[in-house]
């Protein structure tokens, strides 16, 4: 027994060290995850909590004792939040669709190296990544086109993202040229080739790019801040800024005219949850794709 003693002690010390390293790792990860999860729980709980509990807590709560949907009913029954929600949904849908069309057609037009004007147009896309115009010239352009206070100011300036064009182009270039040649021999013109061959085969990359573009439109605060002054045209992000970040008071007249409003905190958190829902809904689809390395491939490319 005594012969083995030093080895046993060393082994024990080693396992002890391994366990404490493991515990330290677990603690760090737990803190990081809690920093993300706890706020979400608290936000949802406060949006569902009734006024007595919110006033007793003096602010946010961690768990709703008597959950009710009063806050959601109040903000969604017409008024400033409902209107902004419709604006955001409209801008996101129209913007994403237009962006996908323009991005994909441009990517297809650039997918055959050696075609006419291929190089200069590709350069145009690449240099757009390197040089960005800055806030003032962009603002003057949108103003010059008469797009201030127009929903188009939220869509057109971000219509084409050069990076997305490059990602989609790389994908299209990997489609076997034989397929395109076969379509040509069968008498298909470019447009038919694009619609019947390229689009169906590019569904995967279009889904990913589309999701990212949609998140971009939904989250866009910067353009709305610059270009939309008319309060009736505000998207959700500006409403969030005014009522949730700057704590402007939501009165009954701002909303659908509910008689007694739930506490401000519940209303604020309900708006926050509403603006989070689309992101959380599409997040699983996003995650399935970005893990596969669409972005990584593009960066390494």
């Amino acid at each position, binding site marked *: 027994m005594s012969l083995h003693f030093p080895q046993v002690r060393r082994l024990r010390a080693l396992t002890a060290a391994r366990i404490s390293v493991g515990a330290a790792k677990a603690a760090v990860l737990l803190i990081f995850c809690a920093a993300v999860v706890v706020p979400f729980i608290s936000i949802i709980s406060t949006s569902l909590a009734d006024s007595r509990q919110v006033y007793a807590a003096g602010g946010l709560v961690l768990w709703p004792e008597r959950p009710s949907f009063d806050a959601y009913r109040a903000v969604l029954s017409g008024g400033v939040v409902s209107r902004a929600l419709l604006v955001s949904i409209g801008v996101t849908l129209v913007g994403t669709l237009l962006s996908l069309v323009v991005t994909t057609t441009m990517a297809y037009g650039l997918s055959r190296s050696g075609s006419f004007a291929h190089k200069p147009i590709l350069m145009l896309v690449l240099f757009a990544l390197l040089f960005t115009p*800055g806030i003032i010239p962009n603002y003057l352009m949108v103003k010059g086109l008469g797009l201030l206070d127009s929903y188009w100011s939220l869509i057109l300036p971000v219509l084409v993202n050069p990076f997305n064009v490059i990602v989609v182009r790389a994908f299209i270039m990997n489609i076997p040229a034989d397929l395109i040649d076969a379509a040509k021999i069968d008498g298909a013109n470019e447009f038919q080739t694009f619609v019947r061959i390229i689009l169906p085969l590019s569904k995967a990359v279009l889904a990913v790019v589309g999701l990212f573009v949609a998140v971009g439109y939904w989250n866009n605060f910067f353009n709305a801040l610059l270009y939309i002054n008319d309060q009736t045209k505000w998207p959700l992000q500006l409403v*969030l800024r005014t009522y949730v970040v700057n704590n402007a008071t939501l009165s009954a007249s701002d909303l659908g005219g509910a008689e007694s409003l739930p506490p401000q905190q519940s209303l604020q958190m309900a708006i926050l949850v509403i603006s989070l829902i689309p992101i959380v809904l599409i997040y699983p689809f996003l995650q399935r794709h970005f893990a596969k390395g669409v972005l990584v491939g593009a960066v390494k490319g």
Partner: protein
Amino acid sequence: MAVNTQCRTATGGPPTEVETRHRGRRSQRFHRDKSLLLFTIPGVCALLLFHYVPLLGNVIAFQDYQPYLGITGSYWVGLDNFAIIINGDPAFLQALENTIVLTFLQVVFVFPAPIALALLLNSLAREWVKRVVQTILYLPHFLSWVIVVAIFQHMLGSAGLVNSWLRTHGYTTISIIGNPDAFKGLITAEVVWKEVGWGTILFLAALSQIDSTLYEAAEVDGASAWRQMWHITLAGLRPLIILLGILRLGDVLSVGFEQIILQQGPVGLAVSEVLDTYVYNNGVLQGSWGVAAAVGLVKGVIGTALVLGANKVAHLFGEAGVYKKP
């Protein structure tokens, strides 16, 4: 491709002179590709209109720009607008200082955080733990800055979750939101919270590319875990770290416009004004278009120059950098 070449020679006929051959080829290529070219037109128009024309719009940095006169009608003033930079206007210097301090904080705390987290995730034995942690930590990347700022305010503000808890348990509350002294720390913490998880993706991908036999060889040679990390893991990540570092340099003078403009009110401009908000506040809000455009232009030029310069330095040291040396 083969089909195309055949078509070209079949319809083109034998070229006689170099000049005509070149022109002939070009017009043939145009005819062959014109429908393909049509596909690029919407995208080219959008890029020209909202990217390249505004780029030219930077000329107002050399004008006393008045909106009612327009670019063609406004007076040219040479470098007058740049005087504010050269002479060191106090508000501008304040914005510059805040920008540099925030950038420094981000380089020290935000840049290495995803590397450390990626190493931590990579060392986890259980695949499902890794996946759960990734799922949770990637999510904040997809939230807008308005939402992130709202979350921070309602967690750390005076009526927030943390202070409510402290108050009900009889502790003194902490003042973070609206406290000018805590502002720069808060900004940095928000960036870490939002981006640390997402930032690991590229590093995890690079880690999975490292040849595992290197670790086995190091083990045989008796290298400790720390030495393995230094000589194999971090050495394997080096190209990516350099690439991201160079790209980050281009943004040295841009620290989160959206993030800061949302939180400027309560803490005041002295601690929170950065170059981007300076441009917005003076140009769009105050109407000093020329001066704001001048500051924006200098900022853009410095950013681009830094990226190109850093890339050059990386090449000198034999690294790949952002693009391969031609």
